C-alpha cells in the first residue's frame, strides 16, 4: 500500500509558493556567473572585456585605487565569488554561499572603484537578499525547510519596488523632466536604434518621454504591490526593461531586473497543481 501523501503536503505547498523565489535565485545566480566570468566575453565581447578571466581580476603591475589588497588576495576573492555563485545557483548551502558571494564581491568592487556599476551593486545585493530568504526550499540539490515564506517573498518584492522608486526619485530634476538628459544620451549614442530615434528624435519628444519614464517608474511601485494591478505592473516593467535593453544595452541590469520580477508571480497556481498531484483538493 502506498504511503499517504498527506503529511508531505504542507511542505510541498510551501515550496510551490516559494517557487518564484527559487527561480529568481537560479536566474540571478546564472546571470551573475555569466557576467563575472569569461563566458560573457564569448557572447558580448565589449561587455565581457572586464571579465577575463573573472570580473575584477587584477593584473600584475596595474595601479589600484582601492583598499590596497595584494594581487593574490584579490584573485582568491574572485575565485571565491565564482565558486560561491555556483553553490548559490544550485542551492547548495545557499545562505552561506550568498554571504560569501556578497563579501568577496564587495571587496573586489571596492578594490576597483572606477569599475563600480549599478549592475554589480544590484547583482550583489540581490544575491545576498535571496540567500537570506527561503529561496532554496525548492529547485535545489539540497532543499531546506522554509523559515518565513511570506516575509521572504515580500522582502524581495520590496527590494524591487524600492529600486524603481529610487530610480524615479533620481529623475525628478529639471534637466531630466524637460528631456535634455535623454536628448544628450541620444546624441552621444548611449540610446540608439530605430526605437530611440522614434522616441527621442526631437527635443519635444524627449520632453514628453522624460517625465513619462519617471512617472512609469513611480507608478510601478503601487502597480506591483497590489495584487489586483500586479499583472499590469509586470507587463509595464517587462516592456520598460525590454525597451531600454533594445535602445541602450545597459550592461545586464535589465536582465537582472527581469529575473527579480519573477518574485511578483503568484505561487498559488503551483499550489493547486501540487495539491492535485498529491490527490488533494484545495478550496477556490
Amino acid at each position, binding site marked *: 500500500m502506498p504511503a499517504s501523501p498527506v503529511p508531505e503536503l504542507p511542505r510541498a505547498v510551501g515550496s510551490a509558493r516559494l517557487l518564484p523565489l527559487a527561480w529568481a535565485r537560479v536566474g540571478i545566480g546564472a546571470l551573475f556567473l555569466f557576467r563575472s566570468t569569461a563566458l560573457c566575453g564569448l557572447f558580448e565581447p565589449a561587455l565581457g572585456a572586464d571579465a577575463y578571466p573573472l570580473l575584477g581580476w587584477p593584473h600584475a603591475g596595474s595601479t589600484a*585605487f582601492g583598499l590596497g589588497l595584494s594581487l593574490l588576495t584579490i584573485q582568491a576573492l574572485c575565485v571565491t565569488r565564482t565558486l560561491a555563485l555556483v553553490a548559490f545557483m544550485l542551492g547548495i548551502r545557499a545562505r552561506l554561499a550568498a554571504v560569501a558571494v556578497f563579501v568577496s564581491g564587495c571587496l573586489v568592487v571596492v578594490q576597483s572603484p572606477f569599475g563600480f556599476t549599478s549592475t554589480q551593486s544590484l547583482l550583489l545585493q540581490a544575491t545576498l537578499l535571496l540567500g537570506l530568504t527561503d529561496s532554496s526550499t525548492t529547485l535545489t540539490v539540497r532543499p531546506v525547510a522554509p523559515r518565513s515564506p511570506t516575509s521572504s517573498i515580500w522582502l524581495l518584492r520590496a527590494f524591487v519596488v524600492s529600486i524603481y522608486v529610487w530610480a524615479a526619485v533620481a529623475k525628478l530634476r529639471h534637466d531630466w523632466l524637460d528631456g535634455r538628459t535623454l536628448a544628450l544620451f541620444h546624441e552621444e549614442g548611449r540610446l540608439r536604434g530605430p526605437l530611440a530615434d522614434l522616441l527621442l528624435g526631437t527635443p519635444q519628444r524627449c520632453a514628453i518621454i522624460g517625465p513619462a519614464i519617471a512617472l512609469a517608474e513611480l507608478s510601478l511601485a503601487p502597480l506591483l504591490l497590489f495584487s489586483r494591478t500586479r499583472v499590469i505592473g509586470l507587463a509595464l516593467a517587462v516592456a520598460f526593461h525590454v525597451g531600454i535593453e533594445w535602445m541602450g544595452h545597459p550592461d545586464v541590469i535589465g536582465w537582472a531586473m527581469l529575473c527579480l520580477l519573477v518574485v511578483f508571480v503568484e505561487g498559488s497556481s503551483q499550489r493547486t497543481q501540487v495539491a492535485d498531484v498529491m490527490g488533494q483538493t484545495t478550496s477556490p
Partner: protein
Amino acid sequence: MGHVVAGLVACLLLPAYSYARGEGGLAWRMFSTSDSFRLRLLATDRTGHVHLLNPVELSSGVEPALRAYLQGAERFRSWPVGSAFQARLPALARLGCATGRYASVELTLERSPNLDAPLQVTRARVSCP
C-alpha cells in the same frame, strides 16, 4: 525580524545614504544622471616648461574601467564618475610623474553634477620624485 532589518537596509538606508552623499552609486541612479566631467593635465619639467598632456597618458597600468574613462577625458564626457575622480585626484596626478621627467604634475577636474549645475573645479598638484 531579520528580513525587516535587511529590507530596511537594502531598500531605504543604503540608497538614502548614497543619495545624501551626492554620489548616488547605491541609489539606483543608473541611466538617469547627466553628470559630466573633464580633465586637464599639466606637467612642469625640470627646466620650468609647462606641458599640456592628454589625460589618456595616465592610463598606463590602470584598471580597464578607468582606462576607458580617461579616453577622451580632455573634453566633457557625461559619465557619472566625477565623484570617483574627485576622491582620487592626487593619486591620479601622481601617475603623471611616470609619463616623463617632470618636476611636478597638476591635474584639474571640472565636474558638473547635472546640466544646470555650475562647474565644480578641483585641482591636485604633486611634486615628482
